[in-house]
């Protein structure tokens, strides 16, 4: 009888400990979402749907205005960076994982080493490096494109690719590496060359590739530090002309930072609204990726 009691007590104690740990893990997540929703949602609905299109109202006024330029900036930055970064990352991953000749294998090993190192770089340093590079190149680029500025959409796109492409590369490469050799040999044995084999293997890895893409997307949307020295930020719409790439643009994350630190009450409120929209975007992306992966 006694040992049974003892066991029950021990089991209950463990249960209590685990439940507490669970609650402690959940608490910060819920409080984060709660705070942002509480402070941001009301602002979004105060000027709905103008919040998505308007520019910020004059600082100190009773209006809030909107974060249209920042939303557009994020969309431009992320769309361009994804369009350029995704094929580069996936092709590099395929090259590394499907290397056959020894020079290919060695180059692949070097690529993997450097990329894994890049993952660890502080993103603010990446932004600074891109800024440095663009500043150095600026005189030459200006010879071709007179309006070019180092603080620009183009710099932002390059910085975002440098921050996020290594992740996508690593995930796809790990996925390809995890495919058993006998599956790879099966495809080769059917007469497929390397390009076709890689295509079949990537299709086999569909869910990994989707996951890699959605995680990169979320990382790009939420990246801040790399954009300080590159996209720079802007509270107005950029003129949609041929110089679009070479002018500063805003982004949601930069809006959260700059508006939030501005000290003007209406801009601080706008910063909460930007946080709310940012959070919703990331949560939606997270949910979407879960649905896509489950659908596989």
């Amino acid at each position, binding site marked *: 009888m006694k040992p049974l009691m003892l066991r029950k007590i021990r089991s209950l104690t463990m249960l209590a400990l685990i439940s507490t740990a669970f609650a402690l893990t959940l608490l910060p997540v819920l409080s984060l979402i709660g705070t942002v929703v509480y402070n941001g949602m009301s602002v979004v609905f105060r000027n709905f749907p103008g919040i998505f299109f308007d520019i910020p109202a004059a600082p100190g006024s009773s209006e809030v205005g909107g974060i249209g330029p920042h939303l557009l900036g994020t969309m431009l930055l992320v769309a361009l960076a994804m369009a350029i970064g995704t094929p580069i990352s996936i092709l590099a991953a395929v090259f590394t994982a499907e290397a056959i000749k020894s020079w290919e294998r060695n180059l692949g090993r070097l690529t993997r080493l450097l990329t894994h190192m890049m993952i660890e770089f502080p993103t603010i340093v990446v932004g600074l490096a891109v800024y440095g590079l663009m500043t150095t190149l600026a005189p030459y680029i200006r010879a071709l494109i007179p309006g070019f500025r180092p603080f620009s959409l183009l710099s932002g796109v390059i910085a975002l690719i440098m921050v996020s492409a290594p992740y996508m590369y690593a995930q796809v490469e790990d996925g390809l590496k995890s495919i058993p050799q006998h599956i790879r040999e*099966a*495809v080769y*044995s059917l007469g*497929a060359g390397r390009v076709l084999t890689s295509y079949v293997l990537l299709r086999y890895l569909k869910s990994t590739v989707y996951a890699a893409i959605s995680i990169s997307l979320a990382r790009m949307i939420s990246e801040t530090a790399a954009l300080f020295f590159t996209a720079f930020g802007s509270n107005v719409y950029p003129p949609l002309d041929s110089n679009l790439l070479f002018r500063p643009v805003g982004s949601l994350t930069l809006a959260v930072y700059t508006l939030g630190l501005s000290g003007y009450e209406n801009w601080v409120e706008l910063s909460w609204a930007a946080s709310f929209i940012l959070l919703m975007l990331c949560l939606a992306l997270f949910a979407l990726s879960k649905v896509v992966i489950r659908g596989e």
Partner: protein
Amino acid sequence: MDSVVQIRDLWVSIGGRSILRGVNLEIPRNVVFAIMGPSGSGKSTLLRSLNRILDLYEGVSVKGQILIDGVDVYNSKTDPSEVRRLVGMVFQIPNPIPNMSIYDNVALGPRINKLVRSRWELDNLVKRALEKAYLWDEVKDRLHLPASKLSGGQQQRLCIARALAMKPKVLLMDEPTSNLDPVASAKIEELIVELKRDVTVVLVTHNSFQASRVSDYVAFMYDGQILEVGLTGQIFTRPKNKLTEKYITGRFG
């Protein structure tokens, strides 16, 4: 004798270690040709050199000549994909692409090599390949389910169907039953005997009983060399080589 495979003085080393040391072999058309021998004797490497799957490994060097149906396999002008179209392969572990449907697995080869021009032609090809692999009746109502839903034995027959859909001249089988239960193995063995009507089967096995049951010819490999080749009946009743005799009587290997 009309040989479909001719191997002349084949030397293979991987990472500096020599695996095959001067292999000479002629394989006649439309027979089951078994290669048996203990683990590490080079059977699998020999098989993998025939369709140049060996190319995928690091540090492989091949010397010598292999002719398959007139194609000089290791000639620098020969495209490995061309060789692999001619030579189907079935592996030790059943390896259909798990999340691909049964139909798509069989259709993979014809699609990769653009063997068919219409959906109707492809349907027919897939059906015939599955019939030849004795699998059609079991899967005809669920062709679009993922291949991973099949049992191990069915998956292996699916892999045979996938190889057959390419209409190869030679079918390489690398211990195709070693991961299957006895009933599934028996079915595959039965199938192997049937297959030789359409294709030459080169079967690697470490199971000498299997070799005696299904093959017409058998070669005994040891330490990277072929010690003895001959008609199966002959080798199993009157082996000339002492090691062959020891192997088939189960005294080593």
